[in-house]
């Protein structure tokens, strides 16, 4: 009764917010500072080249088949070990970043980058062709903090 008249329940709440008033905020000032994603982070996908600047991809079409959003299309040329893609398109406006293509690839020709800022004014920017997919994504990434 006394506690109710003295509004103890309300004072407890006030104490809690007052306590947090003096603690350090946890905000990350996003465009200025960014958190480094974890290594497994599923960002934009890129096409890997080996040491001799050749595509690892053998154009086996497994990634195109497994993709639930059907956003991968590619064309391969050559036979056997020589087989390599001449066209490789990923439409990131459709991609759902499930990672199935990376998982299914038998030669690890696809890999995730930690780039994730896909919001663009131009939808066509998100339609990546083979050149764009092999470009170094570091170009778009800014400084990270963690």
């Amino acid at each position, binding site marked *: 009764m006394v506690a*109710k008249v003295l*509004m103890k*329940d*309300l004072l*407890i*709440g006030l*104490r*809690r*917010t007052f306590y*947090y008033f003096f603690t350090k905020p*946890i905000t990350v000032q996003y465009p200025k500072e960014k958190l480094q*994603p*974890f*290594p*497994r*982070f*599923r960002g934009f996908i890129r096409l890997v080249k080996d040491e001799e600047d050749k595509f690892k991809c053998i154009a086996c079409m497994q990634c195109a088949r*497994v993709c*639930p959003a059907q956003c991968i299309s590619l064309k391969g040329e050559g036979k056997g070990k020589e087989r390599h893609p001449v066209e490789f398109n990923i439409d990131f406006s459709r991609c*759902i*970043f*499930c*990672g*199935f293509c990376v*998982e299914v690839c038998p030669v690890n020709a696809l890999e*995730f980058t930690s780039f994730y800022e896909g919001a663009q004014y131009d939808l066509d920017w998100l339609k990546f062709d083979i050149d764009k997919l092999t470009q170094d994504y570091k170009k778009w990434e800014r400084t990270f903090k963690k």
Partner: protein
Amino acid sequence: MAVKEEQQFKELLAKGTSLGKVDQDLMRETIKTQDLWINMGPQHPSTHGVLRLILSLQGERIVDTEVVIGYLHRGTEKLAEARTYHQIIPLTDRLDYLASPNMNFGYVLAVEKLMGIEVPERAEYIRVLMAELGRISSHLLWLATHALDIGAMTVFLYCFREREMILDLFEMATGGRLTTTYYRIGGVAYDLPEGFLDKVEEFCEIFPSRVKDYDDLLYANRIWLSRTVNIAKIDAETAIALGLSGPSLRGSGVNWDLRRNQPYSVYDKLDFEVAVFDGCDVYARYLVRRKEMLESCKIVKQCVEYLKKTEGPVMAKVPKVIKPPAGEVYMATEAPKGELGYYIVSDGSTKPYRLKIRTPSFANLMSLPEMCKGHLVADVIAAIGSIDIVLGEVDR
């Protein structure tokens, strides 16, 4: 007004929502009142998405609530018929996007049951760990938005702080923050990364003290109590009749949790309490979820203990092309919102013939008219919040 007519009207009013069209006309003839129709949603800040409610009011009292859904319909069930069993996993992520591990869990269990796959024990523990983390994160978001609807905006940010920690854990283990797509038919995609279990342990250490933060702001707060106690009551019988499940059912005092009543995965080896409160009101549902968060935390701790001790495969031997035998299966799991059931009809091909998803939010939402009857407009907000719907799940 004649006494007889007044009596008649009182009876009609007592009948409430069950009034037919004719009776309502009679009602309007008996007395001169204007029903006020309020269209709440689909663009309303507190209908948790694109839910639309048509409220008919007498003064400020609600006579009838009509729930209009379908604004987020994406045809998941139909889409699934054109996908292979493997490709359906990311679709299930997007049902209840607040607890995607739990959504995956039910689906992979259903397919495994259909195919008779034995999953390695380590994978099972990892699955349970993730699902319980998903449950905590879902309940945190529920508490955040529910409190915000009722006006306590600080709880929102405190809850999001902890949810952020869980999302970081998800990102670390699975690569995705919201749609994790971590479960596979026969196990999980990959083993946990190094240092993950330590971080989970750290989280489990911190979490109960953070629940204390929310308690300080809500648990005994008289404003919170006056907004939630005895609001949107639904008794146990009606709740069962309406097909309520999950915390909303347990808030009505029904001791029913699929994790314990129909144990799946390794839940029977874990020690946890089922949170049951018999207040039948918004506050009881709050208490249930609050306790469930702590219980989940306990389960997570046990999983971590097991996983730290053991090594082993995380994937069963599963053929590359998944072709279940012809037949049908129903697998129900306890998702954060309630009973999540997947009903799969297979014709023996690589794609399901039919996938029916029994989502908890859909069934729970249909209890809303019953809950809101006779309450004020402001209580509708509390009621919607208390049944914790996710429109992605309702509309599928």
